[in-house]
């Protein structure tokens, strides 16, 4: 009967749909044993970092180690990182390996995952090139994460409107007060360029050393009060009566629309936007003294990673002069290993830039700075 056939075909279609799903569930994402090992790199950063991986690191690495294929997953900080963290933790709780072989994220996530036992403790026995990384950087996170690149926050300004660039933090504060509405920094919850301005205000009164070390004592935070007061006093002089946009890029867009004339921006990202024609031709970048903070990224190896050996090979390669040269040439960053290991020609060429940046606050202090900024500066107590 025709009706019967129609019912049967509906059921059949549903059955096929289910079968397709079940079959695809049975075939895991990985490939057969004979084929190349595919490493999954989860990188949170901005576009310039994505390009560094996709056009620089990955082709060079796979050329040198043809055994490996690399799968790049580029994610936004914040929401994206949070999901990756949940994923790694869930794999551990379920007793499974995770497909996250290598993860670059903010130091806060390194810190959060240490008590959960999520990361491989890095040592020169596992990765010979770790020895080339400055020790203090590794000690700050107990050898559970390593920076492979550095970049710093600088002051970007539109020379059409700003004739004399500030050279110290106090100069900068004076300029902001004299030109209300023409400066802002991004919400420190959404980008390092905002964290840089906020920590600069705090370091102005406390210095950087105490809060960059890994000893954490919330009582020390009372020393931040003068910094909070300074920031609070600056609020009326910020763009739009104290507005801080979401993310490093949003600040660049405000500069592009000439809504503001000056801002704290990542050096590498600012240059990248400028070179793509997304900023006015009259934009310039300068570093103030003491330098703003830099170097916010850490790479972790999840202990439950499915291809640990490959991930270590990659990370070790990442710390070679070959890869580090790409960091300098492609994103105008600083190398993650000590300058003395870099080729002599580069050392000569970048000897001025290499003066560097102030250290990031340790993860726990940074988390508190972000929270307290929200409580004490924008809400204002």
């Amino acid at each position, binding site marked *: 009967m025709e*009706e*019967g056939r*129609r*019912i049967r075909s*509906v059921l059949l279609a*549903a059955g096929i*749909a*289910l079968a*397709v*799903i*079940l079959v*695809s*569930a049975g*075939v*895991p*994402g990985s490939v057969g044993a004979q084929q190349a090992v595919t490493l*999954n790199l*989860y990188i949170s950063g*901005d*576009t310039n970092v994505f390009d560094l991986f996709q056009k620089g690191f990955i082709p060079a690495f796979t050329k040198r180690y043809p055994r490996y294929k690399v*799968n*790049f*997953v*580029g*994610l*936004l900080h914040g*929401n*994206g990182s949070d*999901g*990756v963290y*949940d*994923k790694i*933790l*869930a*794999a551990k*709780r*379920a007793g*499974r390996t*995770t*497909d996250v072989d290598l993860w670059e994220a903010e130091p806060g996530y390194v810190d959060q995952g240490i008590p959960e036992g999520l990361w491989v403790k890095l040592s020169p026995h596992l990765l010979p090139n770790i020895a080339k990384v400055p020790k203090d950087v590794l000690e700050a996170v107990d050898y559970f994460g390593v920076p492979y690149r550095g970049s710093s926050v600088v002051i970007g300004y539109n020379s059409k409107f700003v004739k004399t660039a500030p050279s110290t933090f106090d100069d900068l504060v004076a300029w902001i007060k004299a030109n209300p509405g023409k400066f802002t920094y991004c919400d420190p919850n959404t980008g390092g360029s905002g964290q840089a301005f906020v920590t600069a205000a705090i370091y102005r009164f406390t210095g950087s050393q105490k809060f960059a070390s890994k000893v954490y004592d919330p009582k020390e935070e009372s020393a931040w009060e003068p910094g909070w007061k300074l920031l609070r006093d600056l609020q009326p002089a910020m763009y739009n009566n104290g507005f801080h946009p*979401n*993310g*490093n*890029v*949003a600040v660049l*867009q405000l500069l*592009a*629309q*000439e*809504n503001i004339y000056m801002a704290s921006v990542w050096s590498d990202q600012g240059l990248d*936007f400028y070179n*793509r*024609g*997304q900023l*006015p031709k009259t934009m310039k970048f300068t570093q103030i003294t003491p330098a703003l903070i830099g170097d916010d990224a850490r790479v972790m190896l999840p202990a439950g990673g499915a291809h640990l050996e490959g991930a270590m090979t990659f990370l070790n390669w990442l710390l070679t002069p070959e890869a580090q040269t790409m960091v300098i040439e492609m994103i105008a960053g600083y190398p993650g290993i000590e300058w003395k290991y870099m080729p002599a020609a580069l050392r000569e060429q970048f000897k001025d830039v290499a003066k560097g940046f102030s250290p990031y606050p340790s993860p726990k202090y940074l988390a508190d700075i972000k929270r307290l900024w929200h409580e004490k500066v924008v809400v204002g107590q």
Partner: protein
Amino acid sequence: MSGGWYWAVGGLRRAVALGAFCALAAFILGPLLTLILWAVAGSWLFPSLLPEFSLKWWVYVLGNSDVTKAIKMSFLSAPVATLLSAVLCIPAAYAFARLEFPGRRALLLSFLSANAFPKIGLYISIATLFYRLNLMDTFAGVVLIQLVNTLLFMIWIPTGTFRGINRNLEEAARDVGAGPLRTFFQITLPIALPGIIVALLFAFLAAFDEAQGTLIVGTPNHMTMPVLMYTLVLSYPQPVGAVFSVLLSLPSLVFLLLAQRYLRAGYLAAGYAL
């Protein structure tokens, strides 16, 4: 005629209506128009009224293999999730509509919790379960996580629709010897079809927009467009976000045209009347 009641006020209304239409059109279409302009902008710096025209960002976006893979995955997973949801939920909706049992409304209402409980606190538990079931980074896992978002629409709207169908019709069919299954497929389903189309529409949009769960379950090999969306909007130059927005809105526009006819027929409201 009821229309007469309305127009009794006089022709002035017509002018007011036209003015209101223009205002509403500006409010609704203005932002979308800006987006389209940004999508064809090489760069657009203040105070230019129009951007410098260029399609270079389309080349940039479409030349990115992650984006094309995500487009494919979105167009594969969302329809499958929607159809699977229909297969699972429509019989349940029929039961909700036809059976009276204690706790019926409470159960129906519990589907609202899928949309009202902030999911942010739930993902670790969900991901742990998915790892145990070997659903991480699988197509099935992505479909399942999208399915969660569709449940509310796929249960509520068909339940409302089925309740609106006269039971006598079904009984008449049964009287002439049709079995229950045949009655359902021959009598009930065709009448309910417009309501089910509306449910499919809402379910598809909900599945298609799912981002946070898909990020956790689908990476690295099963990413969808909304997963990339936040990154593209927040960390790329503005035209990239705009190009991607236009791409992401295209399938919806097709639906807009297809479903217009059924949308206003009250099926949605019937669903929300529990």
